[in-house]
């Protein structure tokens, strides 16, 4: 009996502690709100479980926000720019709500994993402004959706692969089938066919974004069958592709093996030794550019609420990374031509792979 009473007392203490703590932070925010002048702009983001340094989406969004913050003389913290990291899926709602209560003018939700949470919180917090990256939320005026036309940059990558290939066979390794990776695949195939209608394209999905050994086995199969350039859109599975290509290059310095990276410049991953590198180029998704631009627009009072903004080659939201002098002049010229045509609208790049 006595034990139970102590337990009760303890839990009551704990509950009151949480309540009091909540009061405290509320008050703190209140005072800050009144203290900050009105034309000051603040921006924050909620990561998905990847974290702020995932060398991918979360990281680039944060880099964009940081850059925007520094240019506008903002400081990290309340009233400036900040981020909250989600340790698990249950954190999404809490983190979004938390940032809204801290009065950030614009809150980014990074990645399609946050789709449901953002939609829900946005309905409850009508006055707050949200922007979601890589997902579309329709019909909510306080949410802007940011999408990337990765298929356009993949088109250029496909063209480059087809032009640079000596065997006439190129490959594509996907993570898990779906709209986003499908866009990469569709662009890659279309670009390759446009540059060289005879090119053979070997496409295989690993069914996972984190299985490097499977990625390596798929790459081995493709290289074995005469493929010389492989692009991946497979996250950690793609590490295996880099491993396989590097092994081949190490064994035979004349081996013609190349990798096309994804999301950011993967040149460092392709380093075999000081002189050789197997990364041909990378398909870049400039989430940082997008985050910076949307922040700027919102600051100027042009928040694109309820709309879907897509970033393509035109607005430099996607691009092809530096080839570090590997492309032939001919390839370079043709790629520039393709790029201009896509920007001017003469070429429409398909978004879904043909089935």
């Amino acid at each position, binding site marked *: 009996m006595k034990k139970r009473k102590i337990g009760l007392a303890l839990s009551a203490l704990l509950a009151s502690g949480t309540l009091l703590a909540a009061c405290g932070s509320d008050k703190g925010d209140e005072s800050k709100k009144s203290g900050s002048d009105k034309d000051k702009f603040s921006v924050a983001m909620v990561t998905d479980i*990847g*974290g*702020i*340094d*995932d*060398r991918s989406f979360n990281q680039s969004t944060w880099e964009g926000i940081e850059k925007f913050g520094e240019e506008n003389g903002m400081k990290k913290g309340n009233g400036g720019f900040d981020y909250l990291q989600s340790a698990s899926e249950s954190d999404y709602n809490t983190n979004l709500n938390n940032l809204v209560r801290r009065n950030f003018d614009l809150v980014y939700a990074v990645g399609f994993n946050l789709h449901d949470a953002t939609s829900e919180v946005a309905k409850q917090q009508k006055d707050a402004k949200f922007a979601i990256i890589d997902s579309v939320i329709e019909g909510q005026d306080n949410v802007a959706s940011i999408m990337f036309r990765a298929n356009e940059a993949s088109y250029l990558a496909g063209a480059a692969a087809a032009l640079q290939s000596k065997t006439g066979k190129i490959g594509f390794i996907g993570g898990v*089938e779906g709209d986003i990776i499908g866009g990469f695949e569709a662009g890659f195939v279309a670009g390759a066919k446009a540059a060289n209608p005879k090119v053979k394209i*070997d496409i*295989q*999905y690993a*069914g996972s*974004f*984190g*299985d*490097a*050994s*499977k990625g*390596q*086995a*798929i790459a*081995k*199969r493709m290289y*074995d*069958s005469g493929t010389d350039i492989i692009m991946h859109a497979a996250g*950690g599975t793609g*590490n*295996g592709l*880099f*491993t396989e290509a590097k*092994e081949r290059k*190490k*064994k035979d310095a004349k081996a013609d093996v190349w990798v096309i990276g994804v999301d950011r410049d993967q040149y*460092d*991953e392709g*380093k075999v030794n000081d002189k050789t590198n197997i990364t041909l180029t990378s398909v870049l998704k400039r989430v940082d550019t997008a985050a910076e631009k949307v922040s700027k627009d919102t600051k100027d009072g042009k928040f694109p609420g309820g709309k879907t903004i897509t970033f393509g080659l035109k607005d430099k939201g996607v691009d092809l990374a530096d080839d570090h002098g590997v492309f032939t002049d001919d390839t370079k010229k043709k790629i520039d031509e393709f790029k201009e045509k896509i920007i001017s609208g003469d070429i429409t790049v398909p978004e879904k792979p043909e089935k």
Partner: protein
Amino acid sequence: MSFLDVLYFIIPSAIYYAAPLIMTAIGGVFTERSGVVNIGLEGVMIIGAFSSIVFNLKYAATLGGWTPWVGLLVALAVGAVFSLILAVAAVSFRADQTVAGVALNLLGLAVAVFSIKMIYDKGQTDSISERFSRFDIPVLKDIPLLGKMFFTDVYGTSIFAIVVAFIAWFIIYKTPFGLRLRSVGEHPMAADTMGVNVTKMRYIAVMISGALGGIGGAIYAQAIAGNFSATTISGQGFMALAAMIFGKWHPLGALGAALFFGLAQSLSIAGASIPYVKDVPQVILLILPYVLTILALAGFIGKAKAPKASGTPYIKGKR
């Protein structure tokens, strides 16, 4: 791809895929044979992968080509120490072994990711520069057919894993130590009466599994992944656990089972370039390894029999 090309692809791929699993599964055999269930192999592998990568990044400049091998030694030591947690909880304090093992899994990932964050201030490490590389075995590689299947593009770690499997078999079945180990796992009280120190045997067995599991993780990280992140080891520890059960708690059985998993995996990949098979929907090929495993477990190996005392703590004097 002709039939021979398929073989040339499948067999080497299966072997390199299996190497980390073989190591870890044999580690599992040691503990379970001594009567301790080790669900924590995944966590041990993570710790092994983590420590070897950190070591590799730090000392690659001084040790050069030997770095990955020394990295294995580091992973061995760290893995053994890490598994002590399980030994203390499950053997000395007689905690529930499954729960302690799960704790090891959670702890392993958390410690590794947290430390990476502390050391490098980012979520994953850079790629290592000195890694296990493939090589051709001279003379043997010129044997027709077999040479290309078994002796070209070999990883040193694969040979090492297979050798370890045979050594483990010898230790468990042909030495006094092995006999004691098995007796402790089958009937600890009888062993105790005969003067075998049950606690000591179980401690040693758990530490061996930690050492081998750590090496398994290090092989995966340094031969295949090339860096360490939260997803470097994702499920390989459980695959090793399955290989151990599939192999009927026998080192050579575990070796065979791990190779079988590798074979199923590479078969599903090779399927994309075999005529006729490539017209099969990709989903079917993706699930092939798992379906084959279930079929093999359900139909072909017969009843899997665990060591009798596996999973129960030994309490002296209790009947």
